[in-house]
């Protein structure tokens, strides 16, 4: 069963494909999901309600089961979302054909009638939840970090929805143009190791729910023409960077760069897209499969194994050389100094970790999270003023992993198999 995330053209073609009379039959049971981010963008409840109703009308015409969920739900997700799951093995080709025939013969099971759908409309959303979500997104100081965080949270919610409603695949509506922009954004954010998953056709990082991008061959123009010619209905919703300047965030800058370059060099988008097609997930990650070495936020394999001579190593050395004696971020150091000088304790700079003052509690948390994350998620966290606003499921998973690694350190000499899977 597949879950559609970006509706528009996907839905129409599927509707044509799923009807029994079509020449090319699509043999799956689709559902539609829409995540309402109005709370983050700052839309009023009425606006969100209006959009939700419009969408409801749209989705009902397709006849597929649909789910409209507010992003606030992400605050209540279970920790299983960020825990790496073993991927189930694919059935052999022979068994696949048999399964398809069986499906066609016995018709669709699990048809969800409209009454049984649970749709949480914006009017049902708790005010305090919206506030908490805004605080979370707001704790990221730059728009770049906010958008990155928003993408991650949205993806978590999508995966959780797919899992809980029994869908095995998640279809995303990224077009060729959007993927070319995404590729450049990923490179700019330091996600070179995870490019194949971010931009490729299938993304299996969550194990049981596989994300696929069937629209990756169509450019934005083609989709626009199709929508116009076949009167595909759509609803426009503002996003986090609507109406912002070119240089407001890396995502926005890259989008405008690619669009401008495309006008002068019409092969730009297809060239970038083709480059992305030739890439795969970095080889070393599969070998370093020790205890869930996956990023806490994006669940991709960690790319922070510091090679002897690498950009990461260079960054660490620079940090060390520019900022000696005190461990911990500079901003927290200055508050610590102020606080201590007010208290009249003089300079509290210790010769290492033994700083006995107010800032020590904060210092303990931040390095822990960063160890559990890939390079680019570390950058996002660095931009956040406080990690305590992160949803509970992320923080508790971090705590769990930290405890596991402490345990493993204690018993390391007694373990026979070093690469134990967690």
């Amino acid at each position, binding site marked *: 069963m597949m879950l559609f995330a970006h509706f528009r053209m996907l839905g129409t073609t599927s509707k044509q494909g799923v009807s029994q009379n079509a020449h090319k039959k699509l043999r799956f049971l689709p559902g539609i999901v829409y995540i309402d981010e109005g709370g983050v963008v700052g839309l009023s409840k009425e606006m969100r309600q209006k959009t939700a109703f419009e969408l409801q009308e749209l989705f009902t015409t397709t006849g597929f089961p649909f789910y409209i969920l507010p992003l606030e739900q992400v605050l209540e997700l279970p920790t299983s979302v960020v825990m790496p799951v073993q991927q189930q093995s694919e059935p052999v080709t022979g068994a696949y054909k048999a399964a398809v025939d069986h499906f066609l013969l016995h018709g669709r099971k699990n048809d969800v009638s409209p009454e049984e759908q649970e749709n949480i409309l914006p009017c049902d959303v708790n005010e305090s939840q919206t506030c908490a979500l805004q605080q979370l997104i707001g704790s990221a100081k*730059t728009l*770049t970090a906010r958008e990155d965080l928003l993408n991650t949270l949205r993806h978590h919610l999508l995966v959780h929805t797919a899992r809980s409603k029994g869908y095995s695949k998640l279809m995303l509506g990224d077009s060729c143009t959007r993927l070319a922009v995404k*590729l*450049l954004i*990923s*490179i*700019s*954010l*330091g*996600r*070179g*190791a995870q*490019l*194949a998953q971010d931009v490729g056709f299938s993304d299996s990082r969550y194990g049981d729910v596989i994300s696929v991008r069937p629209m990756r061959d169509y450019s934005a123009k083609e989709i626009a023409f199709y929508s116009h010619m076949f009167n595909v209905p759509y609803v426009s919703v503002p996003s986090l960077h609507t109406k912002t300047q*070119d*240089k407001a*965030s*890396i995502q926005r*800058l*890259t989008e405008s*760069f690619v669009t401008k*370059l495309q006008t002068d060099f019409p092969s*730009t988008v297809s*060239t*970038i897209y*083709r*480059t992305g097609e*030739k*890439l*795969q*997930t*970095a*080889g070393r990650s599969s070998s370093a499969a020790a205890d869930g070495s996956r990023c806490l936020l994006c669940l991709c394999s960690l*790319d922070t194994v510091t*090679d*002897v*001579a*690498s*950009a*990461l*190593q*260079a*960054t660490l*050395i*620079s*940090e060390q*050389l*520019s*900022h*000696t*004696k005190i461990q911990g971020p*500079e901003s927290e150091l200055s508050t610590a100094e102020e606080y201590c000088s007010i208290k009249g304790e003089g300079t509290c700079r210790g010769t290492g970790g033994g700083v006995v003052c107010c800032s020590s509690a904060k210092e303990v948390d931040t390095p822990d999270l960063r160890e559990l994350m890939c*390079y*680019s998620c570390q*950058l996002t966290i660095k931009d956040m003023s406080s990690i305590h606003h992160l949803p509970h499921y992320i923080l508790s998973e971090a705590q769990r992993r930290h405890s596991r690694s402490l345990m493993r350190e204690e018993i390391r000499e007694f373990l026979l198999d070093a690469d134990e899977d967690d």
Partner: protein
Amino acid sequence: MPALCSNCSEKRAMLKRPKTGHSLCKLCFFFAFEEEIHQTIVAAKLFKPGETVGIAASGGKDSTVLAYIMKLLNERYNYGLKLMLISVDEGITGYRDDSLETVKRNQQQYELPLKIVSYEELYGWSMDAIVKQVGLKNNCTFCGVFRRQALDRGAIMLRVDKICTGHNADDVAETVLMNVLRGDIARLRRCTAISTASEGDGVVPRCKPLKYAYEKEIVLYAYFKKLDYFSTECIYSPNAYRGYARTFLKDLESIRPSSIIDIIHSGENLSVREGVKMPVQGTCSRCGYISSQALCKACVLLEGLNRGLPKLGIGKHHRLHEKILSQQPLTENEEKKLKSGDF
């Protein structure tokens, strides 16, 4: 109250590091900058004691700072290297002749031997003459290809074991972006390597000690150390495709200063799928230089220039290589496509 240096906390902070944002005093900055390059050299095992190293010097800020720092670190940490300067004269009036004067001054200031090789004596064409034939759009291709060979030839004449160039972090990040935009998957894999492989005669291995140094920090270093360098853009560069990647990179840096290192990190972690066709290294049938085709790029470009067909070498003309090798004349249709159009 003026800010204190975040490293020594004694002296007043004189500058803010573009790379990390910390405020440092002059001495701490010098030390940090030099130490980072030293760490890069040691970690990547760029040099062996007793080697002769040619520093590619153009008179610009990167190569001036590189020459200064190599000499400094060689003495401070006893690398045991013999250093020399190699310079290339492309024959660009008003640009290269001025910067060559700077190199000659550097030679005296740092007391290093200097060798200058010119396009005119190696190929019979100066850049000014090339631009007259090719136009303003694709001339950077000629200059880059010719310079690479020229450096190698100069290095062989001087009998050096390694060449080091002044490519900085901004250059490497730009190259990564450019290779993605151009779809050059083979170069994309190689461009973040800090040193090249050392196989084949006629090719001297080369490395980039400044690979992780930001361009802005190089300028800061040269400024505070009062180093003498030539700071004008090449007069032919404004129309190069690389300009787009450079503007994009500058904008990225203004949004998030660590973007440059982030892009290099991405480039280092890229991995190509199996089954993608990659060029195989061979030798040029005409001059013996390394090449993945029958004729090396420099020979193809030269052939195009000598025959008055400047577009030969820009774009894909593999099929014509055999014709050129066997000295067959090209058909009228082929000739028409290869003559220059845009100026």
